[in-house]
């Protein structure tokens, strides 16, 4: 039966009624109609009309009419019987004709539209049966058949050739893979390059074969080969092409190709993550996750491990992107599945449970949830220990060292230095043991732990830290002889650590030397991968600038900061946000340099920029950034003070003091250095802005605190006490309280004399000045 739209199309094309085509395209209706014709019952009027219009019908009808007329004029019985027989025969012929016309109409209307059929239809539905018959002459059909046969034969041959091309392509693919195993070709690089040549030859054949599924398979395998041999940039377009082809295949047959599409998505995501393209990698992982969920529903035994793996991979990626809550939920999903799998097959999946627990531990540490991190590391260690009882494989020993190293990091974070050193030392012992057998593999881990230990010891065991850093540096330098690309960044990191250590030890020239070495390496690394190494270069520039500030080499310090500012312009948005603190530090320190040079307007501008950045950071994390915000406020206040803008200076200082007091309170410190210095500065501002009564009040109040500290045995504030006393004396003079002034000056002189005994160069001029003021006031009275 034909659909309604086709009936309409036929009806309008051949100018016959819809009813006509509805009947003749329906086999059942046509059969009934033919039965009706033979049983002399009525048939549809549209069909009758069409039959009457056909070119053969008038001849038959005429023949019948002629016999009927003969019958009317014939009286002889014998003759009438003969005529009647003839009439019956003609009537039967007409019935056959009608039936034949309807069968032909049915066949013609339901036949596929070829050029010949269309021509036949045009004649037939005009009633020109004879002409339609001529079109269908044997020779024409035969020719069409011959053509069709040739076409089919050509297509068949082509398909055979395509199949041979696929075979040829896969022969080259195998040849490529076998080339890698041919150790008679001594250099691995040559083996890979030769294999690539074979893959490329295979590509020619597979592309010509037009077999999309095979092309996808070939290109995926080629991409995977390149990926496995670290040729990431070359692997990428092949994976992408395989993905594109598999997407088209999935549209046609999801059941067959979904698993392959998901493999492509997963491998592409892994590759993109290696290239730090986290955004696109996440997109592919999430699509792969959706597919694995679908596949797992159909076949959980096969796909459940893949589902767990993809959750874990998404967790890692999200953690790298600092999307910690998503990372946590992904790791947890992975852990649930791995635990479930490990119940059935502990040998295969318990190590995955360990790996995921370790990842969760790292994540909780990042989230500063240290007890949770410890809980996960501890469980990971326990399971690893159980596994080690039955299996003495080196990977379990290695995992133990890795978890202990992570535990060490955790103890550092929770300020439990002894436990950190103990964990690090245990990890170091394991790695040293493993490195005896596999030095290339495990020496980098030895160096990593040494760096971690150096970092912990650099707080108070400087000599020990120096030893550890230098051993790490020595290891990396040796490893870099064979793999400079891999280890030069590690050398730079370690040089950076040692340089900071020497800065702490105040060994400035060796620190500078180390910093410059690190700087040179990082400048060359930035050419290879600017996104990764720009922040590292920034770190060295900032460290070097601080070193020059310590050496009071302001121009050199400024040059480092200026270079750092250029790097900031090239940082991408995510880095910019991450390095806002460093940016604020550069601006703050540049302002400091300019203030030292007396370029106050520039300094003010830079402090204000730094202040804006630090206000943002403070709003996000007040605990970490409060002291830095207060420092910049205090520095800015100094500029205002220098510019005699006392109102602005006072406001900035009051805000800074408020923050310093909060910090001191939180740390349970009664009088912090920052609070004291801010209070002194406020008193100075009162004095300089001629608010003598207020200044007297402030100085007296701070002197009470300073004297209390001095009485407790801490004489470090003596210079400040002397200055405050001197200023207090001045304030009394301005307030015409001369005897009180003399009293304060005298106290100041006593302290300054003590200080001159210790350091005459610094304090003698101040002592002279106070003595002069004292003499002057005494003589004027």
């Amino acid at each position, binding site marked *: 039966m034909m659909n309604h739209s086709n009936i309409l199309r036929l009806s309008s094309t051949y100018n016959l009624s819809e009813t006509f085509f509805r009947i003749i395209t329906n086999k059942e209706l046509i059969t009934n109609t033919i039965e009706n014709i033979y049983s002399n019952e009525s048939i549809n009027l549209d069909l009758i009309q069409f039959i009457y219009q056909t070119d053969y019908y008038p001849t038959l009808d005429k023949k019948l009419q002629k016999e009927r007329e003969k019958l009317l004029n014939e009286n002889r019985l014998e003759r009438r019987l003969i005529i009647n027989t003839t009439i019956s025969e003609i009537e039967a012929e007409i019935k056959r004709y009608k039936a034949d016309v309807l069968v032909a109409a049915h066949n013609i209307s339901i036949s596929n539209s070829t050029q010949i059929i269309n021509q036949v239809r045009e004649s037939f539905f005009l009633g020109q049966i004879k002409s339609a018959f001529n079109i269908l002459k044997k020779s024409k059909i035969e020719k069409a058949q011959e*053509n069709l046969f*040739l*076409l089919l034969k*050509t*297509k068949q*041959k*082509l398909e055979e*050739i*395509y*199949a*041979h*091309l696929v*075979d*040829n392509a*896969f*022969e*080259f*693919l*195998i*040849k490529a*893979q*076998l*080339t*890698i*195993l*041919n*150790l*008679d070709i001594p250099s*691995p690089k040559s083996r890979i390059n030769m294999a690539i040549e*074979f893959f490329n*030859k295979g590509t*020619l*054949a597979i592309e*010509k074969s037009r077999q999309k599924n095979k092309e996808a398979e070939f290109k995926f*395998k080629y991409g995977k080969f390149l990926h*496995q041999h670290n040729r990431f940039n070359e692997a990428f377009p092949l994976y992408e092409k395989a993905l594109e082809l598999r997407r088209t295949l999935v549209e046609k047959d999801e059941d067959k190709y979904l698993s392959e599409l998901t493999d492509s998505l997963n491998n592409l995501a892994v590759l993109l993550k290696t290239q730090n393209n986290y955004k696109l990698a996440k997109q592919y992982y999430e699509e792969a996750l959706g597919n694995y969920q679908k596949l797992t529903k159909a076949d959980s035994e096969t796909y459940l491990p893949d589902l767990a793996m993809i959750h874990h991979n998404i967790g890692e990626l999200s953690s790298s992107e600092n999307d910690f809550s998503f990372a946590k939920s992904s790791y947890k999903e992975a852990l649930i599945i791995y635990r479930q799998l490990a119940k059935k097959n502990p040998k*295969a999946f318990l190590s995955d449970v360990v790996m995921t627990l370790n990842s969760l531990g790292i994540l909780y540490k990042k989230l500063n949830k240290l007890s949770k991190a410890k809980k996960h590391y501890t469980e990971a260690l326990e399971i690893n220990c159980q596994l080690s009882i039955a*299996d003495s*494989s*080196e*990977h379990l020993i*290695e995992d133990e060292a890795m978890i202990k190293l992570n535990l060490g990091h955790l103890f550092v974070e929770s300020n439990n230095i002894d436990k950190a050193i103990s964990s690090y030392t245990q990890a170091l012992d394991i790695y040293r043991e493993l490195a005896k057998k*596999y*030095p*290339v*593999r495990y020496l980098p881990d030895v160096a990593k732990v040494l760096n971690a230990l150096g970092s912990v010891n650099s707080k108070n065991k400087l000599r020990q830290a120096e030893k550890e850093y230098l051993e790490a540096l020595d290891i990396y330098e040796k490893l870099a002889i064979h793999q400079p690309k891999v280890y030069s960044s590690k050398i730079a990191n370690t040089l950076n650590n040692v340089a900071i250590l020497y800065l702490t030890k105040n060994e400035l020239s060796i620190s500078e030397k180390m910093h410059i070495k690190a700087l040179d390496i990082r400048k060359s690394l930035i050419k290879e991968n600017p996104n990764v190494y720009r922040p590292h270069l920034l770190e060295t520039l900032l460290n070097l600038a601080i070193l020059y500030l310590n050496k009071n080499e302001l121009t050199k310090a400024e040059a480092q900061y200026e270079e750092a500012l250029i790097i900031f312009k090239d940082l991408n948005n995510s880095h910019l946000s991450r390095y806002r603190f460093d940016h604020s530090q550069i601006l703050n320190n540049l302002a400091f340099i300019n203030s030292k040079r007396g370029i106050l307007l520039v300094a003010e501008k830079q402090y204000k920029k730094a202040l804006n950045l630090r206000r943002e950071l403070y709003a996000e994390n007040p605990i970490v950034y409060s002291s830095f915000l207060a420092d910049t406020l205090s520095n800015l206040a100094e500029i205002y003070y220098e510019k005699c803008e006392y109102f602005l200076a006072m406001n900035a200082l009051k805000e800074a003091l408020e923050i310093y007091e909060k910090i001191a309170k939180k740390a349970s410190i009664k009088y912090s250095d920052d609070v004291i210095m801010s209070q002194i500065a406020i008193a100075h501002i009162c004095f300089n802005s001629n608010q003598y009564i207020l200044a007297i009040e402030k100085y007296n109040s701070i002197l009470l605190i300073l004297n209390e500290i001095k009485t407790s045995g801490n004489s470090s504030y003596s210079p400040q006490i002397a200055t405050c006393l001197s200023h207090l004396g001045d304030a009394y003079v301005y307030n015409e309280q001369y005897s009180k002034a003399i009293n304060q000056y005298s106290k100041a002189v006593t302290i300054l004399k003590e200080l001159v005994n210790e350091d005459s160069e610094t304090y003698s001029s101040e002592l002279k000045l106070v003595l002069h003021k004292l003499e002057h006031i005494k003589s004027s009275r």
Partner: protein
Amino acid sequence: MDTNIGILQYIKSGQISINIEISNIKSQKEVNINIYQFFMNSPDFQKLNTEIERKKRQLEETKDESRRLHLTEALQNLYELEKEFKIDVLRLANIFSTIAPKTERLKKAVSLFDQGRFKEADAVLVESEMSREQFELIALADYLEIKYKNLS
């Protein structure tokens, strides 16, 4: 155990998981016994193994510290090569397990590979023959594509 049996049938039947075995090799875990036997019977792997044993002996016999350091490094490189070699073999075995070789040449290569005779398998796939055939196939495909287009 029949040591003449290759590894492809174990992979095809699901008795060996290549991913797990590769992961075992990477993490220096023990591998499946059939994989172990397969490598032990491979003349190409034997050659590599002999070189490792030779270096090990040299290391044991050498007292000189700098020579020892050099030999340790060379030995380490050989261990790495051995590991990479095993992984590459298993990756190829995985590919063989997923394709049905149709050409005689490929069937022969697969058979030799399954006996651990990798270099011989490689030699069976003669590049010049394969390139010539490819050239002819592509030319024929071009001709037939034009013919098909004209006919339809």
